[in-house]
């Protein structure tokens, strides 16, 4: 019994150290924290600096899961299955003006973004059902547009899922990148 005492004392010490860190019933920081991206890039900063040269077009609010050594596409995210393209709350895309995706007019407003990933091509889905969790209540009747986009390979792995807008010749692209791939959702206006 004596032999085991140091073990018990240290175990208790560790246990209370862990408890002390939690210490509260407030919600903890998400493992996949949310983030926001605007077009124009860094619009909120430009706004307070009076440096806005073009009007607000779009923003995306999404959670950023990490790779953490896992194979993401074809592994964690199965090919051919619906994916929430983020974590936690469904990924939200908002257009501040009417835009076109794949030739179809998309009215300004808030939408949810989903994807179906495959090795060489992703289907990106803009859906009208907002304020929902993940892709668990996905209803294809509420799809606004679906578009197939090619997968581009990255040379370096991307640890955290990332989304951002970049200018294109006909509007903007929403670039979505994680692990070794990236795709772009073309938005025209």
């Amino acid at each position, binding site marked *: 019994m004596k032999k085991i005492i140091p073990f018990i004392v240290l175990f208790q010490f560790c246990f209370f*150290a862990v408890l002390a860190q939690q210490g509260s019933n407030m919600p903890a*920081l998400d493992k996949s924290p949310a983030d926001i991206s605007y077009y124009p890039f860094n619009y909120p900063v430009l706004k307070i600096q009076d440096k806005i040269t073009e009007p607000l077009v779009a923003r995306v609010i999404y959670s950023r899961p990490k790779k953490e050594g896992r194979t993401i596409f074809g592994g964690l995210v199965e090919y051919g299955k619906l994916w929430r393209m983020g974590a936690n709350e469904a990924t939200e895309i908002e257009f501040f003006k009417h835009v076109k995706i794949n030739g179809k007019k998309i009215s300004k407003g808030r939408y949810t973004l989903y994807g179906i990933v495959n090795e060489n091509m992703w289907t990106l889905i803009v859906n009208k059902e907002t304020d929902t969790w993940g892709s668990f209540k996905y209803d294809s009747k509420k799809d606004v547009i679906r578009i197939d986009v090619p997968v581009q390979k990255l040379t370096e792995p991307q640890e955290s899922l990332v989304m951002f807008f970049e200018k294109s010749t006909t509007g903007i692209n929403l670039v979505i990148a994680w692990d070794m791939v990236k795709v772009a959702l073309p938005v025209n206006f």
Partner: protein
Amino acid sequence: MKKVGWLVGLILVCFSFSCSHTKKEEPSTKVISTKDSSPVSTQEPVTNPYAAVDVSPMDMSYFPVDYPKLKMSHTTTIPPLARVVYSRPHLQGRKLFHGVLKYGEPWRLGANEATELQLYKSAVIQNKKIPAGRYILYCIPIENTWTIVINSNIDSWGLTQDSTKDIARFEVPVKTTSARLEFFTMIFEKTETGADLLMAWDNIETRLPFTF
């Protein structure tokens, strides 16, 4: 056997130590930062060529609480009432007053982009009706009372405020708690007439009451 006991204990100590360091964040690439979002401790090297995960990660809170989960599980059919989208700075060894914040100086109630309040339907706060819509929030903290400001300058960076776009200002009392919160936290708490928006950080918490 005695040696084994000590060895196991030591392994456990190391394990608990490493647990406390599992939530490392990469430094922010956003162009403006200040005390409420600047990294203090040594950070991991930037490995993300597009947009590093922010040192003050964003989060959102809905009312009804966890609305998206309720929607997913088909336990609600009505629209949500409110949501905040905010960034979560952390203390990193500092004190809130006067380490991160100072009395009398406006604070964005978060970090990075201005904290956003979305009302899906109109609400009443301290007898004032706030129409449905998107707003930003900031506060002016003093020792026992915080002034919470609802402002219409949406999609702005939180570092400076344009008070000409204030919609309403509310004074709310401050409570000191025994527990300390590492990360700034905003959640809605259900009340008899609506919800309180709880804002808590370090050993300070304050509530803005909404009636729906």
